């Protein structure tokens, strides 16, 4: 029990001031790290302030003092109990070459599920159009049902990409923003136990499979590959990675085989979900540029062989990057931790 409040405040105030000063130092410089002695002192100050708060809570009608100590203790509590890595200066190159691909590999099972789901959708969409050609009128968007693939090819080749003259940047912006919104939506739907993400991926697969079979049956597979591969080789994996982020989120909500609570599970995957969706955004910006400035040009302006080679090479480089980039650094870090 505190008998003399004024004396209590007089004696304790230097400790509160010191704690406040150390907290200020930590919040001003996000890269500041305390050494062992500093950490011990910080912990001591926190315990002392928390104990003062407990004493003041039990008896004194001092709302301002209580509020002050509560605020101080909350800030110190956050520093003491935070176990996640502290924020550090943004290093875009390290993030691009190491963090993002490492995160992709860490969650590769979720990516495999997105691929399987999309392929299942492709099989259904492709099968539907193959066995019933009228199905494309119900299944396919973007006016694909309104003209035959051959008519579309003829039209595209005659236009020679001129229909986009003077509006390519706008088109690229539209593609980027639309695709990023769809990807974020795909990721966010993962909060519903991953079900919404799977439905969206399956639906995308249905459309993709339907269009592919429609063009292949019409003998326009070369045009299709030349049209889709340059941007699709990045755009489709990007959507799948967004789905991967959604499934990581969904798996955390379901919590199979985990004894941790929902909040702890979501906290554990937060950084990975963020990394994946940021990676998706980077990929979709590139895909938007390629689609607006390259994919819309067909033969005779750009030979299909060149477009197919570009798309195939891009796909190869993308997966080589995702599967291999930063492995050495990860091994070094593991050894360091070991």
């Amino acid at each position, binding site marked *: 029990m505190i008998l003399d409040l004024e004396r209590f405040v007089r004696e304790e105030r230097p400790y509160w001031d010191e704690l406040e000063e150390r907290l200020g130092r930590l919040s001003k410089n996000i890269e500041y790290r305390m050494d062992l002695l500093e950490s011990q002192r910080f912990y001591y100050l926190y315990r002392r302030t928390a104990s003062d708060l407990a004493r003041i809570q039990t008896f004194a009608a001092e709302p301002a003092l209580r509020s002050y100590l509560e605020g101080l203790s*909350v800030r110190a509590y956050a520093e003491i109990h*935070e176990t996640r890595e502290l924020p550090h200066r943004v290093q875009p190159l390290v993030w691009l070459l190491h963090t993002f691909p490492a995160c992709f590999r860490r969650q590769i099972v979720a990516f495999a599920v997105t691929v399987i789901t999309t392929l299942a959708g492709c099989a259904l969409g492709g099968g539907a159009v193959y066995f019933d050609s009228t199905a494309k009128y119900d299944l396919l968007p973007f006016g694909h049902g309104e003209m035959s693939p051959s008519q579309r090819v003829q039209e595209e080749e005659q236009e020679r990409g001129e229909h986009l003259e003077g509006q*390519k940047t706008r088109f690229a*912006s539209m593609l980027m923003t639309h695709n990023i919104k769809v990807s974020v939506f795909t990721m966010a739907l993962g909060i519903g136990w991953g079900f919404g993400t799977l439905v969206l991926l399956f639906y995308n697969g249905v459309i993709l499979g339907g269009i592919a079979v429609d063009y292949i049956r019409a003998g326009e597979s070369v045009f299709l590959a030349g049209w889709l591969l340059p941007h699709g080789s990045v755009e489709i994996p990007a959507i799948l990675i967004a789905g991967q982020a959604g499934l990581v989120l969904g798996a955390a909500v379901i919590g199979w085989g985990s004894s941790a609570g929902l909040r702890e599970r979501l906290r554990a995957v937060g950084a990975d979900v*963020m990394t994946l969706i940021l990676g998706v955004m980077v990929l979709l910006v590139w895909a938007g540029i390629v689609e607006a400035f390259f994919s819309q040009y067909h033969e005779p302006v750009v030979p299909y062989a060149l477009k197919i080679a570009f798309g195939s090479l891009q796909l190869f480089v993308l997966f080589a990057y995702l599967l291999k980039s930063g492995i050495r650094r990860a091994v070094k870090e593991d050894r360091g931790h070991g």
Partner: protein
Amino acid sequence: MADGRGNVLSIRTDEGIVFELPLAGPMTRFLALGIDLCVTLAFNTILSAVLKLGMAVSPDVFEGLLMLLTVVFHFGYGMLMEWFFRGQTLGKRLLGIRVVDVQGLRLAFSQVLIRNLFRVVDILPGFYLVGGVAMLLNGRYQRLGDLAANTIVVRERSAFQPDLDQVLPGKYNSFREYPHLEARLRQRISPEQAATMLQALLRREELDLEARSELYAEMANHLREIVPFPEEVSAGLSDEQYLRNALESLMRRRGVQE
């Protein structure tokens, strides 16, 4: 350990200390969102006016840029504000609310990013219906973005320091002659009771004469029962003056920095 029942999030630390964070309700949050939408709209108007100048040179490039920057600002505004201003956008700051980690820990950037990106779902099918329903079904008023990011929105505790000059304007407080009784008063009156008494005095002019007399009498009698001051200082004091003296004794500044 965090417990979010009763419009308050209570965090109990390992040391046994309990912090209470009052949760921000859906209406306050909706108003803050409205203010932020106005900021976004104002930014878009200015941006569009600026970029229109460039459209004379290249309409394609500047229209594309406008489209891109509008979306970037729509998502980026909330993220950057909440990250750099410790959980506050302009709207939240004006309404005195703040995004915090659900366990009272430091807000991580991934949390800020996820809760803002989730707006694409929370906003569905319009006017944040999904988010609003999720908030009402959730004891902590969390929309889906908050659930995914492990965040809550709390009302900021006011750093209001009572203006005691208003309570006891330039008068001598006879209770000060008995510091041990003042100390006992501080022990036996809770901060909530003291705050209620302060409000009763500060809102003096808003109360009817009869209601005010009744309220002050009840409060003064309560104080007299808890810690009786000697006749020589309490005799002749009206209920209101008794209340003012007691409150001044309770809340006199102890030299704590704001």
